[in-house]
């Protein structure tokens, strides 16, 4: 026997790379707008710094400023709201939502250059968003957050909302999920039968259908009970809207879900998710709320599963893919547009790209696994080995 040649037996070496130092340009959701409307300033740790969110009492509008006061560095989030200003707890300087200093109680006049950074905000879908751009440009025309009709309709439940901080991972990990068909089976106990991605401009979409997992309980997977069809789109780098229809007992349950995040540092981010459910005929508000809470529970379980993977995996810049994997490299090429200067966005990052996975073999193999699980369970129930 001859020694294996190095070319034939070359081992694939993982390139872990390092997370980008900069943060993604785009709209980032900070949470439900209502949660900031309690008359107090709120601290948000994001984009490598701290922000303060407060509601101007006169206009009712939400504003976002740098948390650290340019005077001597006091933290405005620890201050108070007075009229349409936030007051620094350190020396009492008053700051307006547009970043101007509105007054210094102990001074004859405000220095003309007393201005802090006011972040561009947007309220949509009863959520608060900030625009982040390291180059300082305003959001371009057409780059916005789509309205979700259910968020404003009595025929739908209210939002459930949850947030959790992930340390030790870059948010690319969650964005990768957009194309990752197989992980839905192995990580989320789901059963994808159809899977297609489309990227164009600042939007990346996943079209998916799943079959029920007869071998799973509702607690183990959202898709245990019936067929599902979903369309999930990232609008920019961090805000995903998921429309999911599930067939349950002969009716279709319509849900709208949000999966969004904002970066804290190069390797930590805050993940947030929420759900809305359309009320079925005869459903009371309480039943709808319960149904939305169940959908949110399913989301929560799903994210727990993802987090367990992230906590134990390595970052990988050169995934080794097979033909039935989704287009990870093209997704990352799309995602890169948010991490380069606008002048460096290349056409291939934004040109339309479509990728439909061949699921034939996956469906066959996974069905066999489901059947085997069911058979094993039936034998156990009959008391056989």
């Amino acid at each position: 026997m001859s020694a294996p040649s190095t070319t034939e037996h070359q081992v694939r070496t993982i390139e872990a790379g390092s997370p980008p130092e900069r943060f993604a340009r785009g709209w980032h959701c900070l949470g439900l707008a209502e949660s900031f409307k309690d008359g107090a300033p709120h601290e948000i740790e994001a984009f490598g710094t701290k922000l303060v969110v407060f509601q101007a009492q006169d206009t009712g509008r939400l504003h976002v400023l740098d948390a650290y006061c340019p005077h001597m560095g006091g933290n405005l989030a620890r201050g108070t709201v007075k009229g349409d200003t936030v007051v620094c707890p350190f020396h009492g300087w008053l700051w307006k939502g547009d970043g101007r200093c509105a007054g210094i109680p102990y001074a004859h006049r405000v220095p003309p250059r007393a201005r802090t950074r006011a972040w561009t905000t947007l309220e949509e879908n009863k959520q608060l968003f900030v625009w982040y751009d390291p180059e300082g440009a305003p959001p371009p025309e057409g780059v916005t957050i789509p309205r979700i009709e259910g968020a404003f309709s009595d025929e739908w439940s209210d939002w459930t909302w949850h947030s959790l901080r992930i340390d030790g991972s870059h948010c690319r990990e969650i964005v990768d999920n957009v194309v990752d068909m197989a992980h839905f089976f192995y990580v989320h106990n789901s059963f994808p039968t159809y899977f297609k991605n489309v990227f164009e401009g600042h939007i990346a979409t996943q079209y998916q259908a799943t079959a029920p997992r007869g071998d799973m309980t509702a607690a183990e997977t959202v898709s245990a009970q019936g067929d599902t069809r979903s369309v999930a789109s990232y609008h920019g780098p961090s805000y995903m809207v998921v429309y999911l229809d599930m067939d349950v007992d002969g009716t279709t349950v319509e849900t709208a879900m949000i999966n969004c995040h904002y970066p804290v540092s190069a390797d930590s981010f805050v993940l947030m998710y929420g759900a809305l459910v359309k009320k079925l005929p005869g459903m009371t508000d309480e039943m709808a709320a319960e149904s939305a809470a169940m959908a949110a529970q399913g989301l929560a379980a799903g994210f727990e599963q993802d987090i367990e993977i992230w906590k134990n995996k390595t970052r990988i810049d050169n995934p080794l893919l097979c033909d039935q994997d989704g287009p990870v490299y093209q997704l990352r090429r799309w995602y890169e547009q948010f991490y380069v200067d606008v002048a460096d966005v290349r056409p291939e990052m934004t040109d339309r790209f479509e990728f439909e996975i061949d699921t034939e073999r996956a469906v066959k193999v996974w069905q066999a696994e489901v059947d085997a699980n069911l058979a094993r369970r039936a034998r156990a129930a009959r008391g056989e080995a």
Partner: protein
Amino acid sequence: MRPVTCEECGTGVLVEKRSLPHTSVQWTGPTDRCPQLAGGGARIEGCTRLRASIEREVREGRLTVAHDD
């Protein structure tokens, strides 16, 4: 990837088929000539006319399917 021209709108795209059910389409310019996709972006799953054009290329042997067994 192989070039395919849409029979409907004449847009040229690049297509790869690793198997019959798989399709990958790379556009190399805007979709504004496509009556189904223009203005809809990634919120439209695909153009049925372009899909028909690709299927025809496959049927007529001009677009080879990589692992057709």
